[in-house]
């Protein structure tokens, strides 16, 4: 057992309001630079939708991630033979237009144009060439299902759904969507690291953050191809690849990453997971059906004395083990079994987990006769002439799951490599907690029924309370349990303090100044 610690994330999708505050916080801190304008280390997508870059999930196009062949896994579009033979021209590199051409407006024209008969306008100009351009695409062009015929309909996750199911999803009356915020997953089996010919990308042993050393990156761009989530970006101005750094300077000093700190919906949780690094290869190459379970298995119980002893022997700090025991992500992922990784079939073992959204599932829209509808509605409710019923009733406890407006297959394609039972299990838990809370607060559901819901979903009232608390009422310190990076050691992540010990003042940056001649 090789116990390592990993800073992991949970995004609770029911709570995301799609405000993009996270994206803007990240952009302001890290990517507001020439060559990085088009990069959104954090982006929020509307699902169904094609996302950013367009159709990134379709690995027939982008050739990202690992594929299993026999017992072994191989990088799909990179790796030793391909990275070196394609080094002069990488056929699978996405182009700037797959993301969007960054633009701004000539605002100065508004105040500096000479007086004339017409109002001056601010024309859009490309931030690459500086020339006027027609804006064809932006980073979240398909926000809130806009442009559905071009975007939502081409969502790669729809391909496994039958045409009838797809049709049903896009009927106006049944239309539903949710937001999917994405950052780098800081994977355990990162394809970006494996694909880098220069060995510029590495995973930090202490906390598992995946970083690109800008001094070693040589612009081969294989990581851009290899990351199935398209979360490494090529800076066309510096000729280096860049990616989410999980705000490591903030984490080292005990602050939450900017996207998480600023999250308006408070959907984000961050905490330590202990895992067994010996299992990485075998888990990543396990069968598709068992990928999720295996990944959950390699996450270790931080209360198990054996795990604690192995962690200590491996140099994991006590404070980190402590943080692992309080970790909100451990609760969501393991204790409660509520969260799932995004696209586990890419086999990078992502360490960002999602609590699948319940809202598009909670209610069903049914085609019932108008009379039946009237019976259900309160007499003072507005009466609609059509035959659709938006049903949020809880008569049949989990009845709406299977008739959900959002087919479970779709969720399963996103979060469990197509296995609906895993998604259903989580959704049932979420629903049971709601039923329980409704029993508690509204009181129109009997205790019996609430208990039945809980036990069917495998929960107890205590667990439901805990889930409810961490979902709805958590304080800042509950959401972000960041192990102390040990200030005395944190500084040594940047430089070795021993070098300046015994020097004048704070010492010299330059070695040549050791002796004043």
């Amino acid at each position, binding site marked *: 057992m090789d116990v390592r610690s990993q800073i992991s994330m949970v995004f609770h999708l029911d709570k995301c309001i799609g405000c993009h505050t996270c994206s803007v916080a990240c952009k302001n801190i890290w990517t507001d630079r020439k060559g990085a304008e088009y990069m959104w280390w954090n982006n929020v997508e509307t699902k169904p939708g094609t996302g950013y870059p367009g159709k990134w999930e379709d690995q027939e196009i982008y050739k990202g991630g690992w594929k299993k062949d026999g017992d072994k896994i191989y990088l799909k579009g990179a790796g030793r033979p391909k990275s070196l033979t394609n080094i002069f021209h990488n056929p699978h*590199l996405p182009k700037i237009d797959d993301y969007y051409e960054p633009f701004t407006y000539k605002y100065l024209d508004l105040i500096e144009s000479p007086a004339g008969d017409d109002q001056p306008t601010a024309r859009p100009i490309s931030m690459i060439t500086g020339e006027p351009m027609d804006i064809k695409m932006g980073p979240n062009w398909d926000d809130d299902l806009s442009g559905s015929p071009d975007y939502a309909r081409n969502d790669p996750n729809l391909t496994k759904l039958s045409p009838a199911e797809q049709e049903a999803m896009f009927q106006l009356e049944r239309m539903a969507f949710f937001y999917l915020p994405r950052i780098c997953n800081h994977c355990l089996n990162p394809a970006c690291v494996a694909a880098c010919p*220069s*060995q510029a990308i590495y995973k930090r042993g202490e906390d598992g953050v995946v970083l690109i050393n800008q001094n070693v990156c*040589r612009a081969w761009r294989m990581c851009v191809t290899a990351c199935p989530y398209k979360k490494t970006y090529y800076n066309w101005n510096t*000729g280096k690849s860049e990616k989410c750094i999980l705000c490591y300077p903030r984490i080292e000093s005990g602050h939450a990453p900017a996207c998480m700190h600023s999250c308006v919906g408070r959907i984000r949780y961050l905490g330590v997971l202990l895992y067994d690094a010996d299992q990485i290869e075998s888990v990543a190459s396990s069968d598709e059906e068992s990928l999720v379970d295996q990944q959950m298995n390699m996450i270790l119980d931080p209360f198990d004395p054996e795990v604690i002893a192995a962690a200590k022997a491996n*140099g994991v700090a006590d404070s980190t083990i402590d943080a692992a025991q309080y970790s909100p992500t451990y609760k969501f992922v393991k204790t409660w079994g509520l969260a799932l990784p995004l696209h586990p079939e890419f086999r990078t073992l992502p360490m960002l987990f999602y609590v699948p959204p319940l809202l598009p599932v909670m209610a069903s829209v049914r085609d019932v006769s108008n009379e039946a509808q009237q019976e259900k509605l309160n007499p003072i409710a507005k009466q609609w002439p059509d035959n659709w019923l938006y049903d949020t009733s809880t008569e049949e406890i989990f009845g709406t799951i299977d008739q959900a407006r959002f087919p479970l297959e779709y969720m399963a394609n996103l979060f469990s490599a197509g296995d609906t039972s895993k998604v259903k299990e989580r959704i049932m838990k979420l629903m049971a907690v709601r039923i329980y809370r409704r029993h508690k607060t509204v009181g129109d559901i009997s205790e019996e029924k609430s208990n039945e819901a809980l036990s069917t979903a495998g929960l107890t009232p205590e667990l439901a309370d805990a889930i409810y608390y961490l979902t709805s009422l958590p304080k800042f310190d509950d959401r972000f349990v960041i192990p102390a990076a040990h200030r005395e050691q944190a500084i040594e992540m940047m430089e070795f303090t021993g070098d300046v010990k015994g020097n004048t003042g704070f010492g010299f940056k330059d070695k040549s100044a050791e002796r004043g001649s």
Partner: protein
Amino acid sequence: MNTLNTFLFVVFPYVAGIVFVVGVTYRYRRTAFTVSSLSSQFLEGDKLFWGSVPFHIGLLAVFFGHLLAFLLPQATLAWNSVPVRLIILEVSAFVFGLSLLFGLLSLLWRRLTNPRVRVVTSRMDIAIELLLLAQVVLGCWVALGFRWGSSWFAADLTPYLWSLLALSPETDAVFALPLVIRLHIAGAFLILFMVPFTRLAHFVVAPLHYLFRPYQVVIWNWDRKAVRNPKEPWSKARPKNN
């Protein structure tokens, strides 16, 4: 004329060699960030294919061809002693030269005409491309006009180059060569001289070590066990990451 010759074929090769070694080492150690060739495939990819691939393949073949005649002159001459083999060698070398020429021209054309690529083009990029172009044109001219290059290179130039390396230049053979060939030789030294100042420097960091390393890379800032061992002298657990 002789002073110029002496400068070009005795002094300059040493200057170029020293500038190359010192310059590349200095650039690598001080600003490793800049040691690469700024890729523009992200901005324009299709035309690049028809430039970069024939250019690099042609260049590698031609370069290793020259290198072979330099390292194994006897073998080259022996191979060339059968006319068919000589023709095969010369024709294939020339085809690679043409591929190099074609690639270079399409790269230059793309660089000058594509507005996005223009943005990431420096004056030095153009200068070095023109220099390479001149060198390739001269090279093709030499191959066509002064047959058979592979043989006289091995017989005349290899001794000269080795004598340079042995620090006792023997220049008679070079001085006697036609102007075109001498220009081609001087061009080679000029290119060597320019490497540290241009994007050409990326060839010294060709990522061959990728073949030998494990796929996953994990770096600990400290030796995580030693750092917590009170018996270990603390300066030993030095962070490895900088």
